[in-house]
């Protein structure tokens, strides 16, 4: 097993790029810091310079002014070819070599680095397993693979020499939406394991929000509009451009970033099976949720207590209305909202990992949260926004 290279931070120090013959710079005084092991997405409209910004890291585009540091070392002091062998590189068209088999493609950088055969063969096996490709595919040529498989091999090839930094230029841009979603999820799972520092270029804000630990939004002329976590970006766009780029539905997008546990839940009066209805009725006065939730002795939700149920002596084992949908604290908020809307219920019990009741979620809680969140977040959004100068 390869001794993994420590992921390294990438920091842009006042970087400017001017292409010869152009008056306007393509990138203007870009400064940002990508902490080791995080995914930084560079996003923006076409012509904003996001690809240029990424390519200066491996010097496939040369820096005009300023510097980029990998860890503590300036890329300008490195031999370009050697520097590139230490960085995984994935491009939109994948760029697998058509004349080489899957195995030979993956072996590209290890061979440039002069690894011996056994080490390379072992590494190819490891990587095929990591990307979930059948070992029989080793000897296939790229033309015999599907688009998704090619993209996976492209990622494996970039990871071959276990580089501390990965550069990904619209890696899933040419893939159909369904396969793209799967590849994105696969990559996030992979990243949780390998913890590389990733620079990821896309023009798709949804992809940026999904993939990024941090997002750098660039606008025309290579200016950094905002550099923040996805949640900060959605809650507190720095200016009109960012607000516009993020989209009018940014409130909904935020729900995709949240889990049910991130919100203050309401509490419903609990009605234990067999309990006297009189006691329950007393609890209903002035409760946040005007209905009582029937639970078993383990506090697991069974259903909602109806008026007819209340007319009985004790809380029944089978209340008239069921508890569905039951949500989990770890559910993504967007999915929770979808469940609520789909079952046409106002309230849904939320349970913890053991199935015990933790609170109640309602459409009302979500809409209240969406209407006035700004004040709450502004304070901790401001902490990590390096654009403010």
């Amino acid at each position, binding site marked *: 097993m390869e001794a993994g290279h420590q992921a390294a931070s990438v920091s842009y120090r006042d970087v400017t790029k001017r292409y010869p013959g152009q008056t306007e710079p393509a990138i203007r005084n870009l400064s940002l810091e990508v902490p080791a092991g995080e995914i930084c997405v560079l996003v923006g409209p076409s012509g904003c310079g996001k690809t240029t910004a990424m390519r200066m890291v*491996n010097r*496939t585009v040369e820096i005009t002014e300023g510097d980029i540091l990998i860890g503590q070392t300036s890329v300008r002091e490195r031999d*370009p*070819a*050697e*520097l*590139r*062998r*230490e960085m995984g*590189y994935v*491009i939109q*068209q*994948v*760029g*697998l*070599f*058509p*004349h*080489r*088999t899957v195995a030979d493609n993956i072996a*590209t*950088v290890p061979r*440039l680095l002069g690894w011996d055969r056994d080490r390379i063969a072992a590494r190819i096996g490891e990587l095929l397993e990591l990307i979930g490709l059948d070992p029989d595919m080793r*000897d*296939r*040529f790229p*033309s*015999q693979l599907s688009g998704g498989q090619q993209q996976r091999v492209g990622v494996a*090839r*970039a990871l071959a020499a276990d580089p501390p930094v990965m*550069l990904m230029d619209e890696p899933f841009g040419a893939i159909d939406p369904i396969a793209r979603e799967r590849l994105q999820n696969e990559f996030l799972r992979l990243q949780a394991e390998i913890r590389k520092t990733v620079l990821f270029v896309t023009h798709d804000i949804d992809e940026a929000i999904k993939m990024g630990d941090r997002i750098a939004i660039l606008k025309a002329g290579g200016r950094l509009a905002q550099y923040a976590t996805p949640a900060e970006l959605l809650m507190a766009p720095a200016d009109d451009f960012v607000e516009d780029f993020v989209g009018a539905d940014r409130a909904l997008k935020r729900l995709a970033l949240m889990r049910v546990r991130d919100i203050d839940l309401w509490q419903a009066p609990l009605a234990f099976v067999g309990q006297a209805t009189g006691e329950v009725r007393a609890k209903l006065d002035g409760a946040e949720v005007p209905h009582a939730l029937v639970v078993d002795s383990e506090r697991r939700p069974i259903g909602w207590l109806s008026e007819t149920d209340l007319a009985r002596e004790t809380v029944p084992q089978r209340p008239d209305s069921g508890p569905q949908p039951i949500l989990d604290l770890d559910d993504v908020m967007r999915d929770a909202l979808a469940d609520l809307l789909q079952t046409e219920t106002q309230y849904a019990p939320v349970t913890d990992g053991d199935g015990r009741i933790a609170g109640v979620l309602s459409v009302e809680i979500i809409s209240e949260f969406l209407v006035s969140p700004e004040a709450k977040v502004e304070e901790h959004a401001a902490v990590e926004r390096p654009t403010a100068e």
Partner: protein
Amino acid sequence: MTAAVAQFAPLLAQTEIHNRAEGEASCVAQNKAFCLDWALDNFDRYTTPLLEHLVLVVVSVAMGFLVAFAMALLSHRRRWLVPTFTGATGVLYTIPSLAFFFLLLPVTGRGTDTAIIALTAYTLQIIYRNIVAGLANVPVESREAGRGMGMTHRQLLWRVELPLALPEIIAGLRVATVSTVAIATLAVFAGAGGLGEPIYQQLDFKTNIVIAGGLAILMAIVFDALLVVALRLLAPWRGREPASARRRHRLATLRRAPEAA
């Protein structure tokens, strides 16, 4: 040219006498399209011309390839050289072959050298253009990926660009080889022998023309087939099936054949 023909006149006369002396009144005397008996009896006389022809073609195409390859590499990173090289090889290509031989005679004298220089010059245009086109057609993303992974210019050239240009390079070699086989029949006028010698010695003897011409055609076909096989072996990635599967398929076909028989 007149000088050359005059030189063959005694030879022509000699052969006719020789034929008459044997008294083959039938096929040869009637100059039928093809006389098998005569062909079998006299095949020896074609061995030397055939070998000479082979040497002319192989040496000329090999040298042509080396020169064109060097030119293509030179102009690969210096694009401005491409029109110059294309123009220069184009001019060489337009010189009529006989004129070329006679132009070279005062410099290199009669013989194989003269013929090979001219034949080599003819191959340059086709081979050079195909190498340049092959390199130009390498997918941009392959080049970008190679560079982005830390290949030097030289590594990119030898590991990515040339292998991907191979199909077009070999296509150029096929055309160049076949046309060289044909043009080499004129090498006799430079005094370099080859299959042109028997042809021009007995232009009016049909069996002779069929044999000498047939050998030239056969040589062209064999070279062409060899190059096709070479391409299959060197560029197995071109088909959709993996090379191993294709081999398996071929073996299966071979194994089935005797059963069918």
